[in-house]
């Protein structure tokens, strides 16, 4: 799937760029975005190190397994392939909590830690497991209780009006994504054997 989307986007960009006369912009975008990608990754190092360090302390002190136990009834349903007491469950829950509280900076390191732990359970290392896709879908549909700081800055006092609508919309998108994952994972064309 990624092969087609990736190539498709670039081919469409090339054709559209020629057609709209924006071929120079396309060139610039390609070069600048490759730099941006590295800057984003390098910029993550410090924050990753900070949260992974704190996480390790939380893990060693048993905090993570306590949290994982509390939310077990929900997580075992969402992630049936992950053993309920596996450390991945703790990271998944912490990542979701960070997202709900709007702590984007903390959510990414915790999410990547969870991915690493889910990968330990994966038999085919280049292919996503059902749990990985579920975890990703929950992350991309963004369960969030705190309105992003950027929106508050832009909207001013009006930002409080969109509090309820944002929660309702994000609930709908998360539920839809979870149902879609559960539905698709049983389909043959998305099976691990046919994976693309």
């Amino acid at each position: 799937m990624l092969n087609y989307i990736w190539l498709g986007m670039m081919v469409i960009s090339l054709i559209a760029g020629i057609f709209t006369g924006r071929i120079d912009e396309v060139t610039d975008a390609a070069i600048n975005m490759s730099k941006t990608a590295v800057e984003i990754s390098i910029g993550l190092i410090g924050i990753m190190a900070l949260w992974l360090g704190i996480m390790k302390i939380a893990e060693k002190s048993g905090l993570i397994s306590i949290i994982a136990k509390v939310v077990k009834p929900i997580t075992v349903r969402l992630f049936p392939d992950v053993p309920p007491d596996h450390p991945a469950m703790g990271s998944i829950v912490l990542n979701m909590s960070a997202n709900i509280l709007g702590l984007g900076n903390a959510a990414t390191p915790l999410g990547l830690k969870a991915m690493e732990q889910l990968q330990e359970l994966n038999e085919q290392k280049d292919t996503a497991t059902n749990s990985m896709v579920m975890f990703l879908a929950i992350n991309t549909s963004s369960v969030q209780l705190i309105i992003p700081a950027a929106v508050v800055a832009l909207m001013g006092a009006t930002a409080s009006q969109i509090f309820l609508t944002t929660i309702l919309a994000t609930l709908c998108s998360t539920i839809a994504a979870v149902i879609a994952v559960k539905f698709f994972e049983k389909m043959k064309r998305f099976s691990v054997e046919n994976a693309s």
Partner: protein
Amino acid sequence: MIESIIESMNNGARYIIPLLIVGIPLYAMAIKQVKVYEVFVEGAKDGFTIAIRIIPYLVAILVALGMFRASGALDILLNFLSPALNFVGFPPENLPLALMRPLSGSGSLGLLTDLINEHGSDSLYAKIGATMFGSSETTFYVLAVYFGSVGVVRSRHAIPAGLIGDLVGAIAAVFFCKLLLT
């Protein structure tokens, strides 16, 4: 009433990070006798490798997205979709943001800024836009970073499922804003 609750929530959120950074080591050291400094450094080492590991995946995805945005392909797509969406009650003003949201965080923030500058933060368009922005994530970026960090290249149903979530979220944003804010 709602204003004060939201204000105190956003205010409270400011304390969470420092409380976690201090509280977790404090609990570990005081109650469980964990050697906090040593353990922190041991965990922090992974930060470097993970951040470096995602570079090739992020370059691939961001370059393709950047080209797509710069080429004007998105505008062509908008011209095709606008009439149909207008017909079902989806405001065409909010369509660019709905399409941009899964593709680019900075791009969609730019579009939201345009919406607010053009129509005012009190307009329904701005409120729908802000709701869309707050209720969804940059799907392709998250996919590249999360899957890239462990070297997963076969994403299976992740993209279709993520995009269905985005679509439902965008429709829900329009629906609830029209229902509750007009």
